[in-house]
């Protein structure tokens, strides 16, 4: 699934490690989500949504889902 995580992180001048610490996940997980290799669970997606103060649909692009 495509997402704006990398852009949102860059706008806030955060490294992958900073974001990983904020969300209590590994840096590898953040990297995999940004590259679209791994889709986060709903609880993690809500955590990301709360952290960036944006609705989930503005972070994740669900256009590939039928």
């Amino acid at each position, binding site marked *: 699934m495509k997402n704006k995580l990398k852009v949102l992180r860059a706008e806030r001048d955060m490294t992958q490690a900073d974001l990983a610490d904020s969300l209590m996940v*590994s840096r*590898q*997980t953040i990297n*995999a989500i940004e590259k679209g290799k791994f889709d*986060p669970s709903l609880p993690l997606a809500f955590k990301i949504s709360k952290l960036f103060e944006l609705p989930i649909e503005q972070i994740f692009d669900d256009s590939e889902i039928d």
Partner: protein
Amino acid sequence: MAFATFGPKFLWELNTTWSMLAILLNTALGAGMIWANIKHISVLDELQQKIQLDAMGIALGVGIVGGLSYSTMDNANVISGDAEIGFLVILISVSYMIALVVGKKRYA
């Protein structure tokens, strides 16, 4: 493991009580290892848990298929000597480690 395996022969001369105690101790240590592994997996994040689960699934599949094939080869006398459980343990361990490395690289 070595204590329970070699003890009866070299330490207590095939005394059944001591052998049973050694096997019970070995089993308790094994149960502790399983508990520690569960604790370890529970503190991992969701991607790491997925990598672990995939690796365990592959190791289980390889273990069942490889183990049954190995046992069949023994029954059919394709291999010389009896099938040893140690080979199955090695096969599962190696396939689990390879699957872990592949999983880590896939999400890198």
